[in-house]
């Protein structure tokens, strides 16, 4: 049976989706904090937000890189 492959698919789905969602959510959250007018926030928060979005994008690209046979071979 292909149970192992099925578990692989489930695991890969879970890990990749969670990584992307976590990074993106952190980015959204940090952007929100950076946009707060009530308190003066250090500018670094904004950069941290960008870093999160950037990492998220990289994670997606890395996933695609793993899949596309052109690079894998």
């Amino acid at each position, binding site marked *: 049976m292909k149970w192992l*492959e099925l578990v692989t698919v*489930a695991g890969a*789905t879970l890990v990749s*989706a*969670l990584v*992307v969602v976590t990074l993106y959510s952190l*980015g*959204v*959250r940090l952007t929100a904090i950076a946009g707060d007018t009530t308190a003066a926030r250090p500018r670094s928060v904004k950069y941290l937000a960008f870093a999160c979005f950037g990492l998220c994008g990289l994670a997606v690209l890395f996933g695609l890189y793993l899949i596309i046979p052109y690079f894998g071979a």
Partner: protein
Amino acid sequence: MVALVIALALFFDFTNGFHDTANAMATPIATGAIKPKTAVALAAILNLVGAFLSTEVAKTVSGGIIREGTDGVQITPEIIFAGLMGAVLWNMITWLKGLPSSSSHALFGGLIGAAIAGIGFSAVNFETLMQKVILPAVFAPLIAGLVAYLCTRLAYSLTSRHDPETGDKLTQKRGGFRTGQIFTSSLVALAHGTNDAQKTMGIITLVLIAAGTQEAGTGPQFWVISACALAIAIGTYSGGWRIIRTMGSGLTEVKPAQGFAAETSTASAILASSHLGFALSTTQVASGSVIGSGLGRKGTSVRWGTAGRIAIGWLFTLPAAGIVGALTAVLVGTGTVGVVIAAVAGFAAVTYMLLHSRKSSVGSHNAVEVESAGQAVRFRKKKSMKSKGTKAKGTQS
């Protein structure tokens, strides 16, 4: 005969794009993340690209489910023609009725039905069928749903903001997810290309093998890949226009954060399984994700009736397409006259359905299939946090 089958296969690919991909772009259009025209064009292009990325699924279809080659039974282009006819007709019927059925299962059902009627039970490799089609069909929506549930919970908990002193809710500012949806829905469209366009490639390869113009056990040829990629892209593009027309009628209430989580799960589930050669149904995965992410939001409950109706629709797809495929196979088995009758009847049925669809009003019920999956989850009515969403919706209508 081979040319006829290839034409029919490409038409099936077209209906597939027409039928399915719009689902990927429906949510971002609804939340105002992306302009409808751009969304449809993007989906079409990404399907085209996705089709070129991987050919694992095509290999599963062309080399496994039906035993071909010397040790198996001789599969003829006629059988494939009959199977495709079953798939195309069932696809058109469900599209007309707005059932969230799977194009992939229609295809497999049609082929299996045709093979059984034309050759016998020995023609079908039930073990491969079980491993590569049935099991993924059961588990993929569950996996996608579970992952979407977790992701939605995660996205909401990471972005929920409370005042540290009073404990009051601050403005949540989840607008960023709307932008993110552009990317996630693009990924879904790409994933659709890697999985669904492959099925037609597999079929055409199967025909070429059956006709003796290609070695058994080899992958799809380049022109086959290009033709399938184009067909699904054109289908996506033309199907998308229906969606745009219906956007005014309102979709299930999907929040950007929720849509983001659902789409991420859908895309990763499809990409992961395409990579391993599982031919699963995009529609089913997307439906699973939508339901899962709906459950992940606070204050929701499942409408089990609607969910059950969807599940029954899934169960019916394979046998129903199989019956149409089997009938066509019997007709085709009578000789050239049968082939002509089947082709003419099929063409007439498709034309009739297309004409009929023009007459009937297009609503979100028959344009967006995953919509009914969204309806399976009941949302608590909430009026806060919507100002941004409605503003964005207003500007593009």
